[in-house]
């Protein structure tokens, strides 16, 4: 009997406004406790909320990006409950009429493409933080986070299994950063997901009883938690027990979910429209202004990158895989397009740039724990390097050597360091990492000169080497002649070794074959 895992996600994206959703206090992360809590945030008697238009604008941006309906009139409601880090004793949220209704996201798992429907997205304020450690039996309250604007994005239970759930979460994570509404920082809690998980037998149309899993603060934990939870539910049902609707907490240390509270404990939040805030009204003109300012969206760009290459079209004929990798963020896409713009039109160059960015650049970024926006090798520099491959100056292997030199390793004090100017060959190389007006081609070429890396493409020089190799290895030549193709590679290797790798491998191949045929 096989099972189907059904997942829906609720995501809280912290909106990137400078001030809070209902007060003028700063939303910057990491300030000393309670230094960014205004009279409104600490809920002094007599204070009132005033809605931050920037938060609404970001909600509209999101709604348009997922093809949702923007409610022309939505209502803020109070969600009433007592907790020490909830200063008013209620959270201002949207309940019956959210600002964003419907919409969808396209996800890909392997070669399968799937549309995940969104239920809604609504604006609300975050609570403060309760600090239970360091206070010797007491609890500290930090209200800096209280009133931080959140967009709660609720999906339909359209995902089947942890892979789809993670694909959705990643897609959403990319999108909110892409459209500039959220910094996506999961460590700081700017992007938080809860998963509603249920299981049912394949073929069943009715949804099983769900459990909500909290504390999924990385994609890896999300995947593990969903898998654990689904296993737990399946085992329970197979043992003849039933699933109790409840909220469960994921413990990454033990890789398990534990009950937090059951539905019976669920509080009655006594939602009612907040009388301090008139209904939020959004004009068509406002929606159109926001639409006009939206960047090209990842899905559109993904499709465009795959379209057949044509002059000046910014279409590149890439594979779906390449297009997906290069639209992982707006910065990735810009890096790619800037590289191609500097390199030249044509599917050959697009493929070359794509392959280098997905391969070498990504690997180097991972090694040095940098974001692509901070890559020490600029798109223009990369383009110059790729030109040297294209014109035969460098072999692929040599180019990687030059690339590694161009890549300024981060200094001892960590990432995002300004390149130093003290290293030898790197003296000028370092500067190439800074986006600016440098003629970076000089730098690439200087490295090639300095390292003596220029490829040997002179036919007579290569012929001489090949002659030497044939003369010195009669046994291997004989093997080749008896039909062992492997022996040929051995001879190429000898020729490359003799030139310390600088001979143009293509030319070595051709000349060697010619000479062997004649000999």
């Amino acid at each position: 009997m096989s099972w189907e895992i059904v997942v829906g996600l609720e995501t809280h994206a912290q909106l990137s406004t400078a001030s809070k959703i209902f007060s003028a206090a700063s939303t910057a992360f990491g300030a000393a406790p309670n230094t960014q809590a205004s009279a409104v945030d600490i809920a002094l008697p007599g204070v009132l909320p005033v809605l931050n238009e920037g938060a609404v604008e970001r909600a509209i941006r999101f709604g348009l990006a997922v093809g949702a309906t923007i409610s022309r009139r939505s209502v803020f409601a109070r969600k009433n409950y007592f907790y020490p880090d909830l200063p008013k004793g209620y959270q201002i949220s949207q309940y019956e009429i959210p600002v964003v209704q419907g919409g969808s996201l396209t996800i890909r798992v392997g070669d399968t493409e799937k549309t995940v429907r969104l239920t809604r997205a609504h604006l609300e304020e975050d609570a403060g933080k309760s600090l239970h450690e360091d206070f010797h039996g007491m609890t500290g309250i930090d209200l800096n986070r209280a009133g931080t604007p959140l967009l709660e994005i609720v999906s339909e239970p359209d995902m089947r299994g942890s892979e789809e759930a993670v694909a959705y979460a990643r897609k959403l994570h990319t999108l909110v950063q892409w459209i500039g509404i959220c910094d996506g920082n999961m460590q700081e809690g700017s992007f938080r997901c809860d998963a509603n998980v249920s299981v049912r037998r394949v073929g069943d149309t009715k949804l099983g009883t769900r459990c909500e899993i909290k504390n999924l603060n990385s994609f890896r934990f999300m995947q593990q938690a969903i898998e654990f939870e689904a296993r737990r539910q399946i085992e329970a049902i197979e043992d003849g027990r039933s699933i109790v609707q409840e909220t469960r907490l994921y413990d990454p240390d033990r890789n398990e979910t534990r009950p937090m509270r059951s539905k019976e404990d669920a509080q009655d939040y006594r939602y009612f429209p907040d009388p301090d805030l008139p209904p939020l009204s959004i004009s068509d003109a406002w929606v159109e202004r926001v639409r006009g300012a939206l960047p090209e969206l990842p899905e559109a760009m993904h499709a465009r990158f795959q379209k057949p290459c044509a002059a000046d079209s910014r279409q590149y004929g890439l594979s779906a895989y390449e297009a997906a990798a290069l639209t992982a963020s707006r910065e990735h896409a810009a890096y790619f397009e800037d590289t191609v713009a500097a390199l030249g039109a044509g599917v050959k160059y697009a493929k070359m740039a794509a392959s280098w960015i997905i391969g070498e650049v990504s690997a180097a970024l991972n090694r040095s724990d940098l974001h692509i926006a901070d890559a020490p090798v600029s798109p223009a520099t990369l383009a110059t390097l790729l030109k040297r491959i294209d014109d035969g100056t460098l072999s692929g292997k040599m180019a990687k050597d030059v690339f590694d030199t161009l890549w300024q390793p981060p200094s001892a004090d960590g990432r995002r360091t300004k390149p130093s100017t003290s290293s030898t060959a790197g003296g000028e190389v370092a500067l190439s990492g800074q986006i600016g007006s440098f003629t970076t081609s000089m730098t690439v070429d200087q490295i090639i000169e300095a390292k003596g890396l220029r490829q040997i493409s002179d036919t007579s020089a290569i012929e001489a080497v090949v002659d030497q190799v044939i003369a010195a290895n009669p046994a291997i030549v004989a093997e080749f002649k008896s039909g062992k193709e492997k022996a040929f590679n051995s001879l190429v290797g000898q020729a490359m070794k003799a030139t310390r790798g600088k001979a143009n491998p293509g030319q070595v191949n051709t000349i060697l074959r010619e000479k062997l045929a004649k000999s």
Partner: protein
Amino acid sequence: MLDSTIAELSAALTARSLSSVELTSAVLDRIDAENPRLNAFLTVEREAALEQAKAADARRAAGENGPLLGIPVAHKDILMTAGVRTTCGSRMLANFVAPYDAHVVARMAAAGMVMVGKTNMDEFAMGSSNETSHFGPVMNPWDVERVPGGSSGGSAAAVAARMVPAATGTDTGGSIRQPAAFSGICGLKPTYGVCSRYGLVAFASSLDQAGPFARTAEDCALLLSAMAGHDARDSTSLDRAAEDYSGDLERPLKGLRIGVPHEYVSQGIDDEVTRRIYEALEALLRLGATRVDISLPNVKLSVPVYYVIAPAEASSNLSRFDGVRYGHRAESYTDLNDMYQKSRAEGFGGEVKRRILTGTYVLSHGYYDAYYLKAQQVRRLIAEDFKRAYEQCDLIMGPTAPTTAFRIGENVNDPVKMYLNDIFTIAANLTGGPAMSIPCGFDADGMPVGLQIQGNYFQEARILNVAHCYQQVTDWHRRSPQGLAS
């Protein structure tokens, strides 16, 4: 001097026959003399007041001449006053010092008014008699055995007892107009949104509105001109051009159509109150007004609607008083819930608890539609009644309250009877329209009767105009209680 109106005092200050320091000193002395008997003030700021008076005199000397410059005022203790204790009449905030000024407080200070102190009130403005105050009842200056009305009872008694020429109140369900009526003075609730609620400790956010108390309509106009104005910190504050409420006071009443709802003059109303109202109407008809009989069929539902909506909002608004950040916290407790329960059980009085419980109930899952939603629907029906009525008439008049001031303790054990006292005033809070109470005579016991004048949205100037014209041909507002300290 203390019998003078703001307009008269202002003229004396302008003529330099009186200084604000002299006036403020006299006011403070009167407060000291009367307060032990009336309990109208919870806090008196003598030194700060004299400093402000000195500053006002200096502004006069420098050539400034505002009508409120140097005039003493008392604020209801629900309005935040920077550096001054603001209790809301509750043990919960018995020691709470406000860190900022309410918008209306700041505006009156900017106009040069001298804040002499904070007045007693029903706890968190929940009450119609000032008997729910943690700091004891306020006595009615006309008869200290009786209540001054509520919830702004301290402010009304203070103005009636000539302790201060002007005071602020707040009106959620008649809390300015009913005490004005019981205390024989004028009190105006403006259109919802005319005065900012920023710094007014919320009772029921969709109903709360601050307004002035004074002895004449002319004075109320001066005070309202200072209090009103847009405030970006209150999303329900209306952004409209500043209005001079004093500009149209003398407009003749010829052509004025006064609507008299039969619901306001039928059963359940004290005979003497009804007679005084008819006499007042006759006086206005003699000034050229005409009477239109109208009907407000849904107004009878005002009290039940109010006692769903106001407690619902209050139950949420008062959640912030949890003992965590400020206000009363129980001395000992075992855990978080115990701290909440004890702090709130000790900090709130019986009437506040009753309303929190009622409000929590009507918002609860399964009851919301039957109570809260239904009440909001009826609220709209009541507003439609008034909309229709204002097609037939310019203003609506009737008694402010069905009786004159009752005796202290008389209604405390019968909340429904107490609530019915607000039957005529509550509709203006539900619709948001402006309404005023002015003195129109006395009953056989010598207790004042109030005439309520209601108008359509933003008709404050018209209401004040009619009240002023009435006060030119009557002298009820000139009467003062017997036995005041000299």
